């Protein structure tokens, strides 16, 4: 291809991508009645950043991350601004298909597609990428990013998190990462910088936890599609502004609670969402669930709850202890299916199901995401033993299967309603 035609192709992809985002936003915003007023911040944010190419976060050099296991705190402590690259666009999935085998994960393909297109303003200029070696596809994708000319730090993740050896391996990996950061940001991780980053992040997480707890209310105060959007905004938004916006949303939901407001029908079945992460604009399955009359009250995914729930716990505020505390936070509570053991994920799901009065679980697996596909068996068994029905959906970013999926999702929701009638 000539440079000229390549440039035209890139421009076309860029336009298509913006259109796809606009379409998704219209659906999220306009096809549901009574959205919280404070959600306008998030709808506007996505519109500006993903449809109109506005920049997002203020601050130091942008460092892209491809996984929730990359500690934002360390990047901020070194003066950088972390921005999560995990992409949800079908347009980008198609671009990335050139670099990956056919049967691979949409999310990894779309992320590579994004990095091989004209970068949107919120990623410009991208100083470097931190790629965690989690699943095979992400691990190999790190090399493809390097080939495309990006500076990539391969953050090595152990296959097991329960053993002392695994923990030590990860601590070394994190220490090495902290030491290498000045190469990306031009600044060292300092004691003061890290303490501030930990506190800033935990303030954001406290706001998120308040929002999370409000979703325990019956009837539900917030739809899951909005909750996912809030989580997705954390990928790229300015940390302080995001925290304020979440606090405003929390305050509005408190008022709605006092007014006896209900975000869905008062008897809408309560659903827990797990598996491959919904990333804007691919909120296909959450939207189908809520269009079918259910409400997503909690999630166990790395684009939302797994990313935000657990905060760093520090014993001693000196640099080395803080770095180790950061390492522990990003390993121990992580329920990613790449780890050998799935006990923590089962426990987390059963906990969420119990404390959020969940009536059914929807398990999304991106076609080609082997680890989520494989772990379905044991997770479903654990849910079955606890008497919680689970719907397994294998899908990707393409809109082709929406018709089929809507039938399956509706049938599942209807079966949850019938189950409730039976038990009454």
């Amino acid at each position, binding site marked *: 291809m000539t440079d000229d035609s390549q440039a035209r192709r890139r421009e076309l992809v860029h336009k298509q991508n913006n259109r796809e985002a606009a379409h998704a936003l219209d659906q999220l915003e306009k096809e549901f009645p009574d959205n919280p007023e404070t959600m306008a911040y998030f709808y506007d944010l996505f519109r500006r950043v993903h449809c109109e190419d506005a920049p997002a976060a203020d601050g130091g050099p942008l460092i892209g991350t491809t996984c929730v296991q990359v500690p934002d705190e360390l990047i901020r402590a070194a003066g950088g601004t972390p921005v999560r690259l995990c992409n949800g666009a079908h347009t980008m999935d198609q671009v990335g298909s050139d670099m990956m085998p056919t049967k691979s994960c949409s999310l990894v393909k779309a992320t590579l597609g994004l990095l091989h297109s004209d970068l949107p303003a919120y990623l410009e200029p991208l100083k470097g990428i931190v790629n965690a070696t989690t699943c095979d596809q992400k691990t190999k994708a790190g090399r493809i990013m390097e080939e495309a000319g990006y500076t990539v730090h391969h953050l090595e993740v152990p296959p097991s998190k329960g053993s002392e050896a695994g923990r030590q391996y990860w601590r070394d990996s994190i220490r090495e990462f902290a030491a290498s950061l000045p190469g990306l940001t031009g600044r060292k991780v300092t004691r003061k910088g890290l303490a501030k980053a930990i506190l800033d992040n935990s303030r954001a997480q406290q706001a998120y936890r308040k929002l999370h707890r409000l979703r325990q209310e019956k009837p539900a105060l917030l739809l899951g599609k909005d909750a996912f959007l809030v989580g997705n905004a954390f990928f790229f938004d300015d940390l302080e502004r995001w925290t304020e916006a979440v606090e405003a949303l929390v305050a509005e939901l408190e008022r709605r609670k006092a007014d006896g407001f209900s975000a869905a029908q008062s008897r809408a079945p309560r659903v827990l969402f797990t598996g491959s992460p919904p990333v804007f604009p691919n909120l296909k399955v959450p939207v189908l669930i809520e269009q079918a009359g259910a409400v997503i009250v909690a999630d166990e995914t790395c684009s939302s709850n797994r990313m935000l729930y657990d905060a760093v716990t520090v014993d001693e505020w000196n640099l080395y202890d803080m770095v180790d505390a950061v390492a522990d936070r990003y390993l121990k509570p992580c329920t990613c299916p790449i780890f050998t053991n799935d006990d923590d994920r089962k426990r987390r799901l059963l906990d969420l199901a119990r404390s959020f009065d969940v009536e059914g679980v929807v398990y999304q697996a991106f076609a080609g995401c082997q680890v989520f596909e494989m772990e379905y068996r044991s997770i479903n068994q654990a849910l079955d033993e606890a008497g919680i*029905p689970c719907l397994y959906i*294998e899908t990707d970013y393409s809109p*082709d*299967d929406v*018709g*089929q999926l809507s*039938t*399956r999702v*509706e*049938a599942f929701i*209807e*079966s949850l309603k*019938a*189950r409730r009638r*039976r038990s009454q």
Partner: protein
Amino acid sequence: MSFFAGIDIGSTAIKVALTDEEDRLVAHKATPTGSHFHRNAQEALAALLREAGVSRETVRFLTATGYGRKLFREADESISEITANAIGAKKAGAEHGDIGTIINIGGQDSKAIRVDDEGNVLQFAMNDKCAAGTGRFLDMAARNLELDLEELGDYHFNLKGAPPDINSTCAVFAESEVIGLLAKGYSREEIVAGIHYSIAKRTARLVKRVGVNGRVYFDGGPALNRGLVAALEEELMQELVIPDIAQVTTAYGAAILAREAWADESMAG
């Protein structure tokens, strides 16, 4: 007198069922969906009422199901075809013993459903996206063999020798697959049997995902094909219950749900 109606707007056919207050099937009908599905659905319903001598006013509640369920605004309610199928099969199959698993092959999808004693859906599996091994494939294959759909069953039983393996049950590649086999010298009987076994194998895998429980009920248009039934019974190593109303079970279920919804509303005042 009160009547209830269920309309199942599928990809190939529109099915209507009319029931009374005791959930007895009063009349039923199936017509091609065609390209004007909305008009055809209205006409199918009107024709059924005319034939049954029932006035529209005495139909207290109308429930729509199938792919066109949401676009048929005349309905009082819509319900997914999986729930409607389960309810209809449970009732229609009651005389044959306890139905625990339902197989449905439609025009563009196939499903396996496991139900409890009351017809509530416990688990279900459905083919993803593509129409492989569904009624559409039978349709295409029959056309390429220059046979009527109804003849497929007879051809199946006239088989001498072993049927060929059909590797692809893809509705799009059916043509090249079938023509290829004809060119290799396979008889139409052999190819028909091969097609039935390949659909049966695919369907059996779907059934395995939900599990077999009690008697197995098989419905949808293709359940009228005796050859396919025989192949599926062989694959599942189990006798299947084939209802008289194989094609309208789901519409029948929708009519029962219409009666239930009407009763709930009347109770609520």
